[in-house]
């Protein structure tokens, strides 16, 4: 394709960065925070802050897809805007290809914009209704002062055909297209400068199911063809599973679990992840009676203005104990490729086995969780423990671990556990 040629043209004017090889870290985020101030009164004094994103650490490797899931208000979109630097972080550090871009100004960010692009959720409001799609897709070239090989028009038409639109529709306006087609226009615009990383914020949630599948497949094809790196933010767990290699689960501004797709969906370790996954309605009428498998969470997500102390999930968790209220669990790699921030993880040995007294809220929450689920949870942790013992590539501490007896909450104390606690 003309991509490599175009890449030369693009890179010539930009800060020449070596392309990250697949698997190398492309984006590194440490301690990322974004607090939106709440101002009140005549003097607009700051009276508080919405802690939308409150300490994120993760990496995105070149060529992979990182999925970010969470409920509304968990900070996933803010995270997307922070890593594309549409917002300036309150604290923390964002490094793209080893370069600190945390506090770069608009001008200094401009060269980076070629490499990091965004696809927006709403294909209706993200396209200017008064511009033709030719103008919309060629805007990145104009802004960056780049003339692609063969001229802008030819390149735009090529992009249109890449995303599956008719190149002859160059002069049409957004209203002449359906939702799915508009989303394709948004994707074409994001691809115009041949970026390295594309952040897609709910790319398919505004689309109908049949169109959703078309766009998901398109994103997939483009990644394979162009070697793109994606950060896909979505609330739909089944879509996220389909597109992602690794998945971060967010709750109230924090990552509670970050794991490979298969580990996460087969054996979620954070109770929140488990509840979230069990809540997805399964399109299978024969499972209708099996609703007891579902973990219902109590109430709503607490306010990010004053998030709960300790583990932020402790107010709704059925496994919460005193330590959850007082100590915030760190995000630790408990299994290879699976990081979890929990004192009492599912499908794994307890991280704070000495603390067994459930909080009152947890007792109430546990009433909503069927006994079968608790029993199954115990059984799976046992099975997982056995599996872990059987795998040769695990950590030594886990090998010595006996098969977990009953619930994971009463699992045998681990020597390593208190050490992990800090």
């Amino acid at each position, binding site marked *: 394709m003309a991509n490599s040629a175009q890449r030369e043209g693009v890179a010539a004017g930009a800060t020449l960065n070596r392309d990250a090889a697949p698997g190398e870290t492309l984006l590194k985020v440490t301690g990322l925070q974004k607090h939106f101030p709440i101002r009140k009164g005549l003097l607009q004094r700051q009276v508080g802050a919405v802690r939308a994103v409150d300490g994120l650490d993760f990496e995105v490797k070149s060529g992979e897809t990182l999925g970010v899931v969470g409920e509304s208000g968990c900070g996933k979109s803010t995270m997307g805007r922070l890593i594309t630097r549409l917002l300036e972080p309150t604290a923390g550090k964002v490094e793209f290809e080893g370069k600190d871009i945390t506090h770069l100004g608009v001008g200094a960010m401009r060269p980076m914009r070629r490499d990091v692009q965004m696809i927006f959720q709403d294909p209706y409001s993200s396209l200017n209704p008064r511009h033709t799609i030719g103008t919309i897709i060629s805007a990145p070239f104009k802004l960056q002062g780049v003339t692609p090989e063969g001229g802008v028009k030819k390149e735009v038409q090529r992009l249109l055909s890449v995303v599956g639109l008719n190149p002859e529709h160059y002069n049409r306006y957004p209203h002449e297209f359906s939702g799915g087609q508009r989303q394709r226009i948004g994707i074409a615009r994001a691809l115009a400068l041949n970026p390295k990383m594309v952040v897609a914020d709910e790319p398919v949630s505004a689309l*109908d*199911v049949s*169109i959703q599948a078309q766009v998901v497949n398109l994103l997939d094809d483009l990644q394979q063809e162009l070697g793109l790196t994606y950060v896909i933010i979505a609330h739909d767990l089944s879509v996220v599973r389909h597109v992602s290699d690794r998945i971060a689960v967010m709750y109230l501004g924090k990552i509670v679990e970050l794991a490979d797709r298969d580990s996460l969906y087969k054996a979620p370790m954070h109770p929140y992840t488990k509840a*979230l996954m069990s*809540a997805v*309605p399964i399109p299978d009428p024969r499972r209708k009676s099996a609703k007891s498998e*579902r973990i219902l969470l109590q109430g709503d997500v607490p306010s990010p203005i004053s998030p709960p102390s300790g583990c932020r999930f402790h107010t709704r968790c059925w496994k919460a104990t005193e330590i959850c209220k007082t100590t915030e669990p760190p995000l630790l790699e408990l299994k290879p490729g699976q990081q979890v921030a929990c004192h009492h993880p599912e499908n794994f040995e307890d991280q704070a086995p000495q603390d067994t007294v459930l909080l009152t809220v947890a007792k109430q929450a546990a009433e909503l969780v069927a006994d079968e689920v608790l029993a199954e949870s115990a059984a799976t942790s046992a099975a997982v423990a056995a599996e872990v013992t059987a795998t040769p590539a695990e950590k030594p501490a886990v090998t010595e671990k006996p098969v977990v007896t009953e619930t994971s909450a009463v699992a045998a104390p681990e020597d390593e556990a208190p050490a992990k606690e800090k």
Partner: protein
Amino acid sequence: MTELSKSGAAVGEPVKDSPAPSAFLEVRDLKVHFPTDDGLVKSVDGLSFTLEKGKTLGIVGESGSGKSVTSLGIMGLHTTGQYGKRKAQISGEIWLDGTELLTADPDHVRKLRGREMAMIFQDPLSALHPYYTIGQQIVEAYRIHHKVDKKTARRRAVEMLDRVGIPQPDKRVDSYPHEFSGGMRQRAMIAMSLVNNPELLIADEPTTALDVTVQAQILDLIRDLQKEFGSAVIVITHDLGVVAELSDDILVMYGGRCIERGPAEKVFYEPKHPYTWGLLGSMPRLDREQTERLIPVKGSPPSLINLPTGCAFNPRCAYADVPKDNVTRTVRPELAQVGGRHWAACHMTQEQRERIWTEEIAPKL
């Protein structure tokens, strides 16, 4: 209206002449058309179904397939007067518990609305009035249909809020909608629609605006309440998961018509229409092993002004070229029975569909 109903020939199932149906709700050949400058928008074009008390019908379809227009039509909420030429043209028959709603006196329908049939809307924030407290709105809904004093009505409102799981209902009854979270607003709206114990409840995308964990709570609530009140429920949604959770029967709509209808099990396990196959293939599923690729339906939903001739799905159908006996593409397939209480509208023969489903589609899902 009358003019249309005369010309409205039998589409879908044959319209019987017997005036009093045995079913609790029976919709016969419902058509809702909107005249616009660009032409006549046939949002619903010949829809028939029945629903018994205590049962749930799930209506599935993409945006613009006529799901919501159907529900508003049953509720009698389409404007048919004020805007001169711009009124909706409705024809067909809607029988609710022995009363035909389309020809009934509007005042009578007004009495039924809210009491016999109620609706849960998609977006609770725009369906609730921001100016009145939740309590006032529930009390109003109750007092319109019951001659009781304000105190009794308020007690009833508190009771309903408690029933739908709002904590501290005696306090929250005086809250305004903006003081509630999304899930609580949806609960409040459910409380409002159920305050008169309606026998028909229409839930139009009841959980689309909610997060999954809240969605699970609401689905659970709808299911429990239905068991408790024994109402007939119509759930309108685009989410096959939600339909599978709630419905006994499923009706799949495409381009304003029903293209497949049957018991939930049949529609999910032995679907007989290529569009239903498409819907099932488009959907990534958590309960299955990861598939490499989704199988999307090509193209986009049709324009309701110029529906494709013949089967409305034919431009997008992967099997449109399968040879069919004595039928041309320009003929519209009628709903035909393909099994016990299972209908589909497709030109392919039963055997052809059976073979394609078992050999080509099912293994890929």
